[in-house]
């Protein structure tokens, strides 16, 4: 799967309250959640996003609450993938489980806000089209690949139960 989009840069420790404030958790609608994505820290964010764009952030992205509304809001506002130096553990598993593509990369600092990049999830290669550079990331372990290629956790479990 290849994803191409414009980069929106964020710093370290972007927490789930930043991604979607608690006051909006009275809804589970992806589009509605998406319309408030990053509102607290970047009020114009959703206006700047074109479908397919990519978030690039520092360490510990998605720290804080377990709300799955956070990766849903990111998906809902049109973001196609997240690249970060590291992810908080619950956000990491939520992204896997709902099928939000993401990559961990040590080269985040080399990518600028507004760069056009292309990610190949099967090889883990990030191509920076604006800067004409490539960055290599580590592919997911087999177990997680299985969940992602099944189309999320529930589909994976259904397949497992069927094959038993």
């Amino acid at each position, binding site marked *: 799967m290849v994803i191409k989009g414009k980069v929106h840069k964020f710093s370290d*420790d972007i*927490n789930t*309250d*930043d991604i979607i*404030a*608690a*006051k909006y*958790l*009275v*809804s*589970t609608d992806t589009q509605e959640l998406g319309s408030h994505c990053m509102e*607290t*820290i970047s009020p114009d964010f959703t206006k700047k996003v074109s479908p397919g764009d990519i978030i690039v952030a520092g*360490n*510990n992205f998605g*720290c*804080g*609450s*377990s*709300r*799955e*509304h956070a990766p849903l809001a990111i998906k809902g506002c049109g973001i196609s993938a997240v690249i970060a130096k*590291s992810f*908080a*553990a*619950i956000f990491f*598993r*939520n992204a896997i*489980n*709902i099928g939000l593509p993401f990559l961990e990369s040590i080269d985040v600092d080399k990518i600028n806000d507004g760069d056009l990049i292309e990610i190949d999830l099967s090889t883990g290669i990030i191509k920076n089209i604006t800067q004409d550079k490539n960055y290599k990331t580590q592919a997911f*372990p087999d*177990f*997680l690949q299985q*969940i992602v290629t099944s189309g*999320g*956790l*529930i589909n994976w*479990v*259904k397949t497992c*139960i069927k094959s038993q």
Partner: protein
Amino acid sequence: MGYTIAEKILMAHCAQDSIKPGEFIEASVDVALANDITAPLAISEFKKSGFLKVFNKNKIVLVPDHFAPAKDLKSANQCKVLANFAKEQGIKNYFEIGAMGIEHALLPEKGIVLPGDLIIGADSHTCTYGALGAYATGMGSTDLARAYIDGKCWLKVPATHKYVYKGKLNKWVGGKDLILYTIGQIGVDGALYKTMEFSGPVIEKLGMDDRFSMSNMAIEAGARSGLIQPDAITKEFVAGFKRKSKFYYSDSDAVYEKTYEWDVTKLEPQVACPHLPSNVKPVSELKNIKVDQVVIGSCTNGRISDLRIAAKLLRGKKVAKGVKLIVFPATQKIYLEAVQEGLAEIFVKAGGVFSTPTCGPCLGGHMGILTDGEVAIATTNRNFLGRMGSPKSFVYLSNPAVAAASAITGKITHPGAL
């Protein structure tokens, strides 16, 4: 090579006779918890999956606590989803507001979570139960939906960091200060994807309420869980419960990725300053910080001993002019105890409000939202930008004694200075 308590509990729940950090396992859960924010998503995913019955109605717990008592129509609808699902599936561990409490105080109080259990919860502070010597960890709604189907979850076995606290605690210093100090030292990702194990002579003397405060905030250092090995204090706490506990202990040759050791004898009450739980300073370094609101309660510090500490300071005193004091006990049982012991009267006479149990103010949900420019000191667990309301407000985190003292003076205050 030995194992840590966390590794032993995980091993027992995936029927393996060996385990190593980094390995992926499929584990059976003893308790699967969700609340009025996370359960509606889990229930809708479960229903979409085509399965009709949950794997075991006795292992599922539903607690409407975040926006309950329902703050508006949308939250009323969300709470209703839980009530309907509980009825339809025959889930008895559903707690309507008269029986409820903040989930992480309620479940230990009811004996629903016990030492040796593997508990998953669609709430990040599920790690609280680590204080009992259980492996408890926060997950998302889809993880819960999956557990509803077959009672299992996937886990990557975390490496363990050991924290040893030596010395003797000062007056007004407790579990909250130890965990704030720890997060201040290691940072909000200092234990990212790790198990934290709290130990040492100081922990051995801590009561359960203080232990719960510590384990509760393991997530604020990025950890998957924060465990304390069971001892006489743990055993006394669980003695009356019907279901049997299983006590696990770390081997003497268990492998720790890192060990931290601190002498905390000189530690004074700690305060986390805006806007991260790791931005921690000793209270005496904070001079002339005026507060508009003081919040005492939550899954971190809303237990009876927390309220007793606050009441001791507030007895016969008045909150400073213009300060809003909100005290919210964590469960209905604690609420009743506070009324019977006269604590509620002390809070009200001091000029505070005494609220029904709810997560409300902690996450900026309801019952005490901050507006632009307002400053709060709270015994809660997160002080992220906008956490309690306006992105232009400021939240400081402390123990209940510092919060109560600050309510009296109107600025952040060492309780010993009163």
